[in-house]
C-alpha cells in the first residue's frame, strides 16, 4: 500500500475513468474518492454506467482511459493485488446455480486457499449466519431471490474482503429480503469493510451510504452526502393518485397553493410535490378532499430517482419509464 497519507484513508480512488463499447461511451470520465470503512453509493438509472464502473474497479474490464486504485493498487497494473483485497457481488447472481449453497461456499473457500476442513467449517458458519442453514443442501437454482442474494453476499465474505463491490444488491427483492440485505451491509461496514454500492434507489443510498455520486450517461452529475443531495432535491415528496385522471388539472392547482414544485407523473392520475413537512402534506391532502377531488391513495416519502434527476438535470432519467430492465443493464452497457 502507498505510504502517502491521503491514499491510506482512501479505499477507492478513480480519476477520469472511461470505457466505450463501440459508439457508446458507457463511462465517460468518472472520478471517485471513497474513504476507507465507508459505504459509497453510486446512484443512477439503468445504462448510466454503474455496472461498467464496477467492472473496471474490480479488474473485469480494462479502462480505455483514466486510472483507478483500490487500496493503493492500480487496477490495470496490479490486477492480482486488487483481486486479493476485493469481492464482487454482481448484478447477475454470481453464484453457481447448479451447485448447492454449501458447495458454492466450500468451492470458494478452497479457491481462497483454505484447507478442506476449514473451508467446510467456514461454509457452515456463513450459511448459519445468513439464515441459509436449512437450504444448504439444495441446489441454488431452487432458491428464492432473497436467499440467492444472501448466498451471493455470503460468497463474497468467505474471506472478509477489505473492499466489497455490490451491484444493485436489492433490485427485485421483496421489502423483507431487502431489509435483511441492508442489515447485512450495515454489519459489514461496522466491521471495517469499505463498500461501493450501486443502486437505482435514492432511499437505499440514503439508508446506507455515507457519500453518494449520482451518475448519468457515464458521468458524475452530483456528489455529496445524502443530506446534501436531498437538500438540493427537496427532502421529501407527497405523491397523490387521483380516482379520476380528469381531475388532475384542478388537483394540481390546489396542490400549488399548498406546496412547491408540483409536477405531473407518468401515471395520468398521479401528481407529486415537494414536501418536507408531514403536517403541510396532510393539509394539502385535506384541501383536495375539501374541493371534492377523489383520492385513490397518497404517500409521503423520499424523492424517487425520477425526482432526483428532475431536480439535478431538469429532465427525468432516460430509461425511467422502463420496467423489468434491471437485468439488462449489463447488456445495454455492453451493446
Amino acid at each position, binding site marked *: 500500500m502507498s505510504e502517502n497519507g491521503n491514499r491510506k484513508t482512501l479505499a477507492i480512488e478513480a480519476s477520469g475513468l472511461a470505457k466505450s463499447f463501440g459508439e457508446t461511451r458507457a463511462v465517460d470520465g468518472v472520478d471517485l474518492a471513497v474513504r476507507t470503512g465507508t*459505504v459509497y453509493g453510486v446512484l443512477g438509472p439503468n445504462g448510466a454506467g454503474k455496472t461498467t464502473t464496477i*467492472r473496471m474497479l*474490480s*479488474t*473485469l474490464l480494462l479502462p480505455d482511459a483514466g486510472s483507478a486504485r483500490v487500496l493503493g493498487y492500480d487496477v490495470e497494473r496490479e490486477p*492480482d493485488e486488487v483481486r*486479493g483485497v*476485493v*469481492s*464482487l457481488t*454482481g*448484478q*447477475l*447472481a*454470481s*453464484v*453457481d*446455480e*447448479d*451447485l448447492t449453497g454449501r*458447495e458454492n461456499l466450500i*468451492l470458494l473457500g*478452497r*479457491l*481462497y*486457499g*483454505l*484447507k478442506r476442513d*476449514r473451508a467446510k467449517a*467456514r461454509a457452515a*458458519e*456463513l450459511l*448459519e*449466519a*445468513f*439464515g441459509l442453514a436449512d437450504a444448504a443442501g439444495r*441446489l441454488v437454482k431452487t432458491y428464492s431471490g432473497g436467499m440467492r442474494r*444472501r448466498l451471493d453476499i455470503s*460468497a463474497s*465474505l*468467505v*474471506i*472478509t474482503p477489505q473492499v466489497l463491490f455490490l451491484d444493485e444488491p436489492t433490485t427485485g427483492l421483496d*421489502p*423483507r429480503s*431487502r*431489509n*435483511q440485505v441492508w*442489515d*447485512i451491509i*450495515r*454489519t459489514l461496514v*461496522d*466491521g471495517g*469493510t469499505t463498500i461501493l454500492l450501486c443502486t437505482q434507489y435514492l*432511499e437505499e443510498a440514503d*439508508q*446506507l*451510504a*455515507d457519500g453518494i455520486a449520482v451518475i448519468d450517461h457515464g458521468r458524475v452529475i452530483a456528489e455529496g452526502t445524502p443530506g446534501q443531495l436531498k437538500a438540493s432535491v427537496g427532502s421529501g415528496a407527497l405523491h397523490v393518485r387521483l380516482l379520476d385522471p380528469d381531475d388532475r388539472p384542478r388537483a394540481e392547482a390546489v396542490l400549488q397553493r399548498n406546496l412547491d414544485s408540483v409536477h405531473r407523473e407518468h401515471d395520468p392520475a398521479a401528481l407529486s410535490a415537494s414536501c418536507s413537512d408531514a403536517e403541510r402534506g396532510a393539509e394539502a391532502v385535506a384541501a383536495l378532499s375539501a374541493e371534492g377531488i377523489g383520492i385513490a391513495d397518497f404517500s409521503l416519502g423520499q424523492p424517487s430517482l425520477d425526482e432526483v434527476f428532475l431536480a439535478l438535470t431538469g429532465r427525468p432519467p432516460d430509461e425511467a419509464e422502463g420496467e423489468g430492465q434491471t437485468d439488462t443493464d449489463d447488456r445495454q452497457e455492453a451493446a
Partner: protein
Amino acid sequence: MNPDGIGTTTTTGAPPAAGSKLEAEAIRKALSATERPPRASAASAALSFGWRGMLKVKHVPEQLLDVTITPVMFVLLFTYLFGGAIAGSTGEYRDYIMPGVLVIAVLFTTVYSGIAINTDLTKGVIDRFRTLPIWSPSPLVGSLLGDCVRYLVAATVIVVLGLILGFRPDAGLPGILAAVAVVILFSFGLSWVFTTMGLVMRSPNAVMNAGFMTIFPLTFLSNVYVDPDTLPAGLEAFVNANPISHLVSASRGLMEGNVESENLIVALGTAALFTAIFAPLTNRLYRRS
C-alpha cells in the same frame, strides 16, 4: 447511514416476521472469524474447479447418458449390423473395431467441454471466478480435468461392454489401460480446440453443431471402421494422414501388444500441439470475454 444500524426498521419496509431477522451478531462473528490464508496454489485451484465439474455430474447424472449410450449403440450397431458384411464375421469385426470405438466414444465427449464453457460464460458466476486471486487459467484447466473423468467413464463403458461381448485383446488388461490412457491424453489436447470454439461462438447450440460437424467426419475418415487399403487412393492418403488414424492404430497396437512408436508419437504429439496452440488461445479469449 443510521449509526445504530442493525435492528431498525425502515419506514417503507414490511415489518420483519418473527424469526426472520438475521442474527447480526452471528454475521459479525462470522466476519471476524476469517484470516486470509496463503493463496491457493495453481494445482489446488485447478483441482477445485475439477471438483466443481464432478459435483455437476453428481447433481445431474443424466448428463452422463450421452457419454455412455452413444458408445454402446456404436459397438452393438457396428459389430452386429455391419460386422458380418464388412469382416465376414461379427467376432472378427468386433476385435477390429473395439480399439477404434474406444477412441470415437471418448473424442465425441470432448465437444461437451466447449459447450460447458459457452454455457458458463452466460452466467454471473464467471465474474466471481475472474475476481478471485487465483491462477487465471485454473477454471479452464480444472474443468478439463473434470472432463477427463467423463472421458474415463465413457472409456470404461466401452471396455466393459467389449469384455462382455468376448473381446480379449492379446496384451490383456495392461494393454487396455495403456490404450485408455493415451486416448484420454489425446482428448485432453483436443478439448482445448473445442473450448476455443466455445469462447468464440454465440450459443451452446452453435458450439454443439460446429463441434460435431468437425469431429464426425474426422472420425469417419479414419481407420476406425475399415482398413484404409480398401479406399480410393486420395481418400486413403487423407485417412493415413489423419491424426485420429494414428491414435486408433496406437490404441490397437497397445491392446494387441505390437504398438508402433510412430503412431504413439503422432498421437501424443498432436495432443501436445493442440494444447500448445489452443490452451493459450482459450486463456486469452477467456480473460477478454
